[in-house]
């Protein structure tokens, strides 16, 4: 194969520009062979090199006293006290999921779990953020069905609960669905494993599944737009084996309990190439690999294929010398391959051999350092003018609007999805799917972690900077609404083609917004992932910078959910309402308007309001809390009423809108920095809010009636039965999927 001529066509097929190829020549001082060309190609792909995004990612806040490890490792690590750490990251698997939804989504879940347990953590929860095209698009139903089954199939088998997520439907995702998977794990702070190789002569060990031809060039595929022939890329999609991953997880954790490991890295995108290069680069050492010793699933594989395969459920590690047999026993117990395939060297090069013959020789540090970095040209997004509330007119009653909105694709219940996920395995899930953030307790302690994924892409499209801020504050609010202190976030930047200045402008705007919000809220980014080129035939997705937020409850008994379980309480809204309808779901679904600027985000106010809410929860002044976001106040109230314990809801009477704000704007506006709380001590809360200089008002009252007879009454309108609201809210998604 060293005979393969390196033609300009071959170079182009590997996604390298002429200029990038010139750099390859100068690094090697000669022409590369095909294996080396493949290695440069994947290492410098957008997916692995972050070449379009890196300059901007550096502007995000990534430090804080709680941060043990920020971006740059397999996952971020934060301190949660008592010698314990939470390890988490979010990652996209968008391109494969569109082509082959079940396997694409499944291996997305598998990949992110490996990132987390590679660092020594036992995964305790999975989350996912999904975007699909318009429900009427012919592919949408098939994608929803396959992606949900794939996520469930993988997570359920491995035994990690899937506890939270979010889903949007929008025509901009017709040609590119988004599948972002997040895993949260738990480790001891003195038992965290990193990827930096060290110790000249130490053995380099391959464990896990055998290598096949699946996923070759997956990273390159994820670095280009789709055209009509997207289906033809099916062979580049990997196939998941959650059973093997479960064995790998248990075997790795067993090995990690010993002191045999020097460093460890999972084989994700660009498989053996990126894992070996990253380990060598971080350690400032070389690595020699005898590729013929790699366990192979197929015959006739070449060094090129071995280095580029993205077969799943594999790990590379450096062991302490002389410990190979001891380590091998653990992997034999779990019936996994274990092979010493090379050693750490002092050459500074990645040297590959094939039956004793050299197959590639690339200096590691130039390969990594010369990785291209582009300051792509960008133009700022023209932010639309504020939508005047009085430009939206309606004759519809609030009750009818509420009913209509609860059965829209963006607000309908997601039960059909999360009932396909095992969300209670391990017995630690305190707050289940369907609330603001999931809460998972930490065994053997009073502590718990709150976690959520959030983004409002329509805000980001209209005003990327505000949208970037809003994604962060919504995740932060969702964590706060459980009573937890938000500690850090992970981000998944999903955008179109960065070579287009308008798309790059969306990216830059969102980053600026996220950076500002992260700084203002002491909410650093500790890990993340970028997925660009989410375009088909020139149509880009909405800018979708998903935030995964994690927070800590020191005492999980001082936490609340959103359900109105306690009768005869007062419902108080904390935060100010001007009735902002620009980019609201009400404007979109009831009046058909996509106009206007999204609601402004006041970071200082968010911070103060969140602190106030956490105090109320900690001091046990409230029995339920819900952050207000999509759909505004009335949707939030209905969600709280429908969530009541008996399953059929609790009756609520809602005060009329105050003078000066049109009723539909008051009830459906999406003003930020707002929460609803249910309390028996409304006077105390109102006077505390006055002292804190925060707006607060009574918006409703729950009564004794619950169950089938419960109703929701808005101002002077006739009561609506909650059973009928629940039926439309729960009915849309199953109905759509069955039709």
């Amino acid at each position: 194969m060293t005979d393969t001529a390196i033609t300009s066509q071959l170079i182009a097929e590997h996604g390298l520009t002429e200029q990038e190829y010139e750099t390859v020549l100068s690094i090697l001082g000669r022409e590369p062979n095909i294996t080396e060309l493949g290695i440069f190609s994947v290492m410098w792909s957008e997916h692995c090199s972050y070449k379009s995004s890196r300059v901007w990612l550096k502007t995000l806040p990534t430090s804080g006293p709680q941060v043990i490890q920020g971006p740059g490792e397999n996952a971020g690590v934060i301190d949660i006290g008592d010698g314990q750490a939470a390890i988490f990251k979010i990652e996209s698997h968008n391109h494969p999921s569109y082509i082959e939804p079940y396997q694409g989504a499944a291996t997305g879940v598998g990949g992110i779990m490996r990132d987390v347990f590679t660092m020594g953590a036992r995964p305790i929860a999975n989350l996912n953020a999904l975007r699909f095209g318009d429900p009427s698009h012919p592919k949408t139903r098939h994608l929803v069905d396959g992606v949900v089954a794939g996520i469930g199939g993988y997570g359920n088998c491995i035994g990690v609960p899937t506890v939270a997520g979010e889903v949007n439907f929008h025509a901009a995702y017709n040609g590119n669905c988004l599948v972002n998977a997040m895993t949260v794990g738990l480790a001891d702070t003195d038992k965290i494993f990193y990827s930096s190789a060290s110790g000249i002569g130490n053995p380099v060990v391959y464990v896990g599944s055998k290598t096949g031809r699946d996923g070759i060039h997956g990273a390159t595929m994820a670095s280009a737009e789709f055209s009509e022939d997207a289906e033809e890329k099916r062979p580049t999609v990997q196939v998941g084996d959650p059973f093997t991953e479960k064995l790998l997880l248990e075997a790795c954790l067993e090995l990690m309990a010993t002191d045999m490991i020097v460093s460890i890295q999972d084989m994700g995108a660009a498989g053996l190439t990126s894992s070996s290069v990253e380990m060598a680069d971080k350690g400032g050492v070389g690595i020699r690999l005898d590729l013929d010793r790699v366990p192979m699933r197929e015959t006739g594989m070449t060094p090129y294929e071995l280095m580029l395969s993205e077969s799943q459920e594999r790990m590379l590690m450096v062991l302490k010398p002389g410990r190979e047999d001891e380590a091998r026993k653990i992997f034999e117990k779990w019936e996994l391959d274990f092979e010493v395939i090379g050693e750490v060297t002092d050459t500074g090069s990645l040297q590959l051999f094939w039956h004793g013959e050299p197959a590639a020789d690339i200096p590691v540090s130039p390969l990594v350092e010369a990785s291209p970095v582009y300051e792509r040209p960008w133009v700022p997004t023209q932010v639309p003018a504020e939508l005047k509330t009085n430009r939206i007119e309606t004759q519809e009653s609030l009750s009818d609007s509420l009913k209509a909105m609860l059965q829209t694709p963006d607000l309908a219940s997601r039960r059909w999805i999360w009932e396909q996920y095992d969300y209670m395995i391990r017995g630690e899930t305190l707050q289940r799917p369907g609330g603001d953030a999931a809460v998972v307790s930490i065994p053997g302690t009073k502590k718990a972690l709150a976690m959520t994924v959030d983004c409002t892409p329509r805000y980001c499209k209209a005003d990327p900077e505000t949208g970037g801020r809003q994604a962060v504050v919504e995740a932060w609010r969702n964590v706060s609404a459980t009573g937890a202190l938000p500690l850090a976030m992970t981000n998944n930047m999903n955008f179109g083609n960065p070579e287009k200045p308008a798309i790059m402008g969306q990216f830059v705007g969102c980053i600026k917004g996220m950076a500002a919000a992260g700084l203002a809220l002491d909410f650093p980014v500790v890990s993340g992932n970028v997925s660009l080129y989410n375009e088909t035939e020139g149509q880009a997705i909405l800018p979708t910078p998903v935030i995964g937020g994690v927070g800590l409850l020191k005492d999980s008994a001082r936490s609340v959910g959103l359900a109105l379980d306690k009768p005869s309480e007062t419902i108080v809204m904390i935060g100010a309402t001007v009735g902002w309808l620009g980019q609201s779901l009400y404007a979109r679904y009831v009046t058909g308007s996509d106009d206007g600027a999204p609601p402004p985000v006041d970071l200082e106010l968010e911070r103060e309001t969140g602190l106030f809410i956490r105090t109320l929860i900690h001091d046990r002044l409230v029995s339920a809390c819900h952050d207000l976001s999509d759909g505004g106040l009335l949707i939030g109230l209905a969600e709280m009423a429908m969530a009541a314990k008996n399953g059929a809801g609790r009756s609520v009477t809602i005060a009329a809108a105050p003078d000066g704000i049109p009723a539909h704007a008051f009830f459906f506006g999406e003003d930020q920095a707002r929460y609803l709380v249910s309390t028996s001590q409304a006077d105390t809360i109102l006077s505390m809010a006055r002292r804190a200089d925060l707006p607060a008002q009574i918006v409703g009252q729950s009564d004794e009636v619950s169950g089938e007879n419960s109703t929701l009454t808005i101002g002077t309108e006739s009561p609506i039965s909650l059973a009928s609201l629940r039926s439309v809210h729960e009915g849309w998604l199953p109905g759509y999927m069955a039709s």
Partner: protein
Amino acid sequence: MHAAVIVFPGTNREKDMADALEKAGAPRPSMIWHREPDLPDGLDLIVVPGGFSYGDYLRCGAMAGNSPVMRAVAEKAKKGVRVLGVCNGFQVLTETGLLPGVLLRNARLKFICKHVRLRVENPTPGFTGAMADGTVIRVPMAHNEGNYFADTDTLDRLEGDGRVAFRYVDEADQPSEAGNDNGSQRNIAGVLNEGRNVLGMMPHPENAIDPAYGGDDGLAFFKSIVQ
């Protein structure tokens, strides 16, 4: 009480099961790795917990059902040791032949994770003896293949012998179609062997042992086992 929990590669609810037994007052059970040829002496209870034994890429429980450790479990069962199989464990026990019937794919072909209502029938010493006949407990299910099937003769015999241990019921405690999410024949959620010392059930009482985590109805079942 000396309990053992069998762990296959791919088993994933062994911790939940051990937690539940412990919470009900039993000492921490022994975890038995599937390759161990002999089971300890003096066992009062063997549990085959939930998960995806050997990946369940073949028919669920088929590989585990033919494993050496299950032959050892079957021998113990013959001698009267109590055996409880939950979810994948139930599937394994039917594959081993310790229990009649099979677990088919759920009627609606989807994995289902939700709380269901189970009616205790034919209270049986050693398992449900301390629970009143007709007691309804709310516990979760989480499976893709929990649709209990057996031929009519077998079903009639099970009913006639009083070997239906649990049935799915609706909000009105009736064994209707509404309460039967996975489509099981005659709403059967759990069955006993002829000797009444082997019980298999699909739902997970081990995940209903604490009100803070969605309810503790499952604890009564484990207390009944442990007492």
